[in-house]
């Protein structure tokens, strides 16, 4: 068996909540669209990242697939991204279609809205995975066989669910503290499952590319293909595979073109194949490799921060409150059958909203600041909660209940559903 690498890239853009004030509640149900030049202008950001990352990387992947018969890559594309691309940059969808048409690109399933629904509502979670699968089928003509939960949020229960749902493989973070002596460079079987396999992210190698590549203070800067291949080989050792999981936007957005990220990746792919090694899609890896044993992760592990848990999204009380109020609306939103209301409520589920409310200033603070369009996590919370209140008002109006009938007084909201 050849030494293998599985590259998995995640494509996502959220709908960001605009500075939505308490005075907008009941006046405007537009939580997301702005037409100014601020950092919450989703169209502006999508077009910027399209130029810096999506278009050049799609084009590079296309070149690599044409040039190297053995090149493989796996992608997951969030529904939020697809919605935005269809609206503002449909050529990106065509670009991804062409990649899938080569037959050597695998589509990985996830929740449509890049949400943490699994941890709040199983019915909503399943609905979103279905939505994503249907959308992918409609656009790309494939039905995913691999699954990843939002932010690689994984535990035994997620694996059990994916197994029952018929997925062949699931992705997770290969975090030392959970793995102990076990290496992430093997295929595993999740605890208490029948058929599904587990692939673990090699975070050291992934982060070399995704986080450290362009850091001029890094002792290994600049990273060359030769050096990286040496590291990959050394890391795999007697193992089977190195899983390089990262954001698609690593290429051109997190790591800039002028630092050479595209040419590095091109060189690496060519050299790796040239040395007689293999690339796998995640499902190919699951089919072709032998399982090295069982792994159990009772506690949730994610791919974020030094803690690798959900605290970046649900660590403080604002985040917990926001999520609680959001999911408390599920039943009443769903039974309204109001498609716009349901759609808005679902866009508010995107995990990025909670991420922007993170107050972990120390250590990870910088990364959060980098990825947030707001000047403070408190503002992120304020705008978000106002949007939630408007959703609640719409629910009350739809079902003709709550103090809102007779009084335009949000104080009454507390009497309802909270």
């Amino acid at each position, binding site marked *: 068996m050849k030494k293998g690498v599985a590259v998995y890239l995640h494509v996502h853009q959220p709908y960001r909540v605009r500075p939505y*004030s*308490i*005075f907008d509640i009941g006046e405007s149900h537009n939580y997301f669209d702005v037409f100014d030049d601020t950092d919450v202008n989703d169209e502006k950001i999508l077009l910027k990242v399209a130029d810096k990352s999506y278009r050049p990387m799609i084009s590079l992947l296309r070149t690599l697939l044409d040039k190297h018969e053995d090149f493989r890559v796996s992608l997951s594309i969030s529904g939020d991204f697809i919605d935005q691309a269809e609206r503002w940059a449909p050529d990106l969808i065509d670009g991804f279609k062409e990649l899938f048409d080569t037959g050597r690109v695998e589509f990985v399933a996830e929740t449509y809205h890049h949400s943490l629904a699994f941890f709040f509502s199983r019915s909503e979670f399943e609905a979103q995975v279905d939505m994503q699968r249907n959308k992918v089928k409609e656009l790309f003509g494939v039905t995913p066989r691999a699954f990843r939960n939002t932010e690689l949020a994984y535990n035994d229960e997620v694996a059990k669910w994916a197994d029952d749902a018929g997925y062949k493989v699931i992705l997770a973070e290969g975090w030392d503290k959970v793995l102990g002596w076990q290496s992430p460079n093997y295929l595993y079987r999740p605890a208490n499952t029948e058929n599904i396999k587990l692939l673990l992210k090699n975070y050291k190698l992934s982060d070399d590319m995704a986080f450290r590549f362009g850091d001029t203070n890094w002792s290994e800067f600049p990273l060359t293909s030769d050096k990286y291949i040496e590291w990959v080989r050394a890391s795999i050792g007697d193992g089977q595979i190195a899983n390089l999981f990262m954001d698609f936007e690593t290429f051109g957005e997190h790591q800039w073109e002028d630092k050479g990220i595209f040419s590095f990746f091109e060189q690496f792919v060519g050299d790796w194949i040239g040395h007689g090694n293999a690339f796998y899609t995640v499902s190919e890896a699951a089919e072709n490799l032998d399982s090295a044993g069982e792994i159990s992760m009772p506690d949730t592990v994610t791919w974020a921060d030094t803690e690798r848990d959900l605290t970046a999204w649900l660590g*403080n*009380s*604002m985040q*917990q*409150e*926001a999520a609680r109020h959001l999911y408390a609306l599920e039943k009443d939103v769903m039974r309204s059958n109001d498609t716009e209301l349901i759609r808005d409520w679902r866009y508010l589920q995107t995990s990025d909203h909670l991420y922007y409310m993170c*107050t972990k*200033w120390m250590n990870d603070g910088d990364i959060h600041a980098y990825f947030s369009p707001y*000047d*403070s996590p*408190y*503002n992120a*919370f*304020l705008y978000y*909660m*106002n949007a939630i*209140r408007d959703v609640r008002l719409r629910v009350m109006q739809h079902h003709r209940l709550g103090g809102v009938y007779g009084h335009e*007084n*949000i*104080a009454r909201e507390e009497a309802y559903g909270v």
Partner: protein
Amino acid sequence: MKILMLGWELPPHNSGGLGVACYHMSKALSIAGASIDFVLPYRADHPGVDFMKIHHATELKPDLKAHMGSYDSNWVFERYLENATNPNSLRGIQRRYVDFIEDIAPELRPDVIHAHDWLTMEAGVRAKELTGAPLVVHVHATEFDRSGEHYGNPIVHEIEQNALLMADRIIAVSQLTKNIIVREYGIPEELVEVVHNAVNMDDFGPYEYDTRSYRYLEALKYEGYTVVSVLTRFTIQKGLTHFMKAAARACEKYDRFVFLFAGDGELRDELIQLSAEYGISDKVYFTGFVRGKQWRDVYSISDIFVMSSVSEPFGLTALEAAHHGAALILSKQSGVGEVLNSSLKYDFWDTDTLADQMLGIALSPALATELRNNVRNEYARLSWDDIAKNCMGIYRRTRKVALV
């Protein structure tokens, strides 16, 4: 290091933050090894001040400080500056202060002169002329701040301008103040250092909140009301009319608010009038000037503390409020915001945003809790000892340059 420190007030005879800052800074400097001669314009006892020598420039009683007002705005200055021939007018006291410095400065032979704000700046310049020691001018507020972003009193402005030009080094209490010094007074950026203030609650003595001072407000709190407070002098600098407007705006959406106006000042009547005009006078409480326990209880009863200043060089009260467990909303024109990330911020004129933020906190216990808890780590990091070390470094560097 021998320092001639020129101040205008010290606790307990202070009318605001300047005296508090001078007290803590001097104490920390003396611990750091400095020997300090501190000059005041009045004579009074300052119990507990045994770490420096206090000099009294006049025999006046500190009660007069109400008339000497180190902070008051243009309106008051005009009344007290006019009468320069009267030795008990503000200008007259300043003259006597300079005379006193002329007497003692040569004998004291200081290594550095450290002058606080415009009231002592002329004396600082004079001391420099007489002793040749370098002059450090510490800017806690400029005339630009006091007059609410107008040019202010031309005499005061000129005194500041002259001293800032004569200073060997300038200390600004925030980046905001530094920007004003550079922009409005044309001082080169590299001459101005930013040294933020700190808060030291240990010095305020034992305290336990017992809910007695503001019983009616406590009763309302029990009913679910949110108490929003300001604690300040009611001058144009403080932006209170904007705050009142935001209060009314917030009440349009949610009626369980109480607004506590602690303090006093020339705008008091206008504010009362305004609260009636907006129809929220029932929700607005004026305490008058508060001290001691009543003063600390204002912070303790507050769910939200607002600093609404049009131009606030630093804003010590925000740190005090944070210490007593209030969530903070600060105007972006307040320097203290530079050291407190865990606060909500708005432009002083943006009443809708302020209303939105007050409502946000009132309606969300989680937001209130996070703001309250997280800000503790931030103000606790600020220490007068670090400030003293910083000042000692500035003295040394300034002396070196002056000797060359």
